[in-house]
C-alpha cells in the first residue's frame, strides 16, 4: 500500500465463479502482478504434494503479458533465486527477486521492484506499516471470527488497514 497500488487476490472476488475464472479475470484486470514462488514446497499432509497454484498462475500471467505486452508487467519473488533456476528453468534470464523468506526481505524486494515517481518510501516506513498491520491482525481475526488472514473479509480489512497505516506513517491526511 505504501507504494500506492491496490492489492487484489482471487479470494476477494465475489460470486460463485470458478476459482480459475476469477484468477484469469484478475490477471487481465491488473496492471502488475507479483508471484511469490517461495511456498512451492511439499505439504505435511499425505499424499505429500507440492502446491502448484502459484507457478500455474505465473504461467497464465506470462501468456497474458505476451498477448498484451503493454498492459501487464509481472515480477517473480522467491526465498532464494536459485530455487527458481532449479524448479522452473524456463524462467532463466528473468530477474527474480530473492526475499530470504523474511518480511523485511519481502519489503526490500518490493521496494526494489517498484519506484514511486514522487516520493519513495523509506525502509523504516515500510517496516512500520508492516508492524501496524501485524499488530492489528489478531484484533481483525477476532472481530471477523476467522482463523486465517487469507479469508476474504479479513483480507479486505487488511488492505484497508494497510492504507490507513501508510497514510498515518507518511503524515498524509
Amino acid at each position: 500500500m505504501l507504494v500506492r497500488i491496490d492489492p487484489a487476490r482471487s479470494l476477494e472476488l465475489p460470486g460463485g465463479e470458478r476459482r480459475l475464472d476469477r484468477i484469469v479475470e484478475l490477471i487481465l484486470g491488473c496492471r502488475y502482478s507479483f508471484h511469490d514462488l517461495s511456498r512451492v514446497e511439499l505439504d505435511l499432509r499425505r499424499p505429500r504434494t507440492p502446491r502448484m497454484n502459484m507457478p500455474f498462475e505465473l504461467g497464465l500471467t506470462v501468456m497474458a503479458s505476451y498477448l498484451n505486452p503493454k498492459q501487464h508487467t509481472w515480477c517473480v519473488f522467491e526465498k532464494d533465486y536459485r530455487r527458481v533456476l532449479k524448479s522452473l528453468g524456463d524462467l532463466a534470464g528473468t530477474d527474480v527477486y530473492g526475499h530470504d523468506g523474511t518480511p523485511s526481505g519481502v519489503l526490500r524486494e518490493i521496494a526494489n521492484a517498484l519506484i514511486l515517481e514522487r516520493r519513495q518510501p523509506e525502509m523504516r516506513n515500510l517496516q512500520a506499516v508492516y508492524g501496524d498491520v501485524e499488530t492489528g491482525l489478531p484484533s481483525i481475526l477476532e472481530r471477523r471470527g476467522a482463523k486465517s488472514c487469507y479469508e476474504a473479509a479479513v483480507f479486505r480489512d487488511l488492505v484497508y488497514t494497510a492504507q490507513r497505516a501508510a497514510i498515518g506513517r507518511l503524515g498524509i491526511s
Partner: protein
Amino acid sequence: MPKRQTVIPKRQPIVVSGKFMPSAELAKMLGISARRAKELDRLVEDIQRQDRLRLAKKSASKKRQNGPSRVAVR
C-alpha cells in the same frame, strides 16, 4: 502469435505514479461498511499512538541512562 519479447528487463523497476485512494472510496471498493471502516481507523490510530508512546518512553529511558546533559550540569 505475437513477437516474443522480454517481459521484465533486468532489474528495471516499475515506476508507479498512483495516489492513495480516499479512504471512503477504498472502503466502498472493498465492500467494507462505513462502521467497520471507522473501527479500523480507530484500530490503526490506537496502534500508532501506542507505538509513539513506546518510542517516547524508550527515548526518555535512554536519556536517563546517559545522565544529565552538560547544559543541565552547568
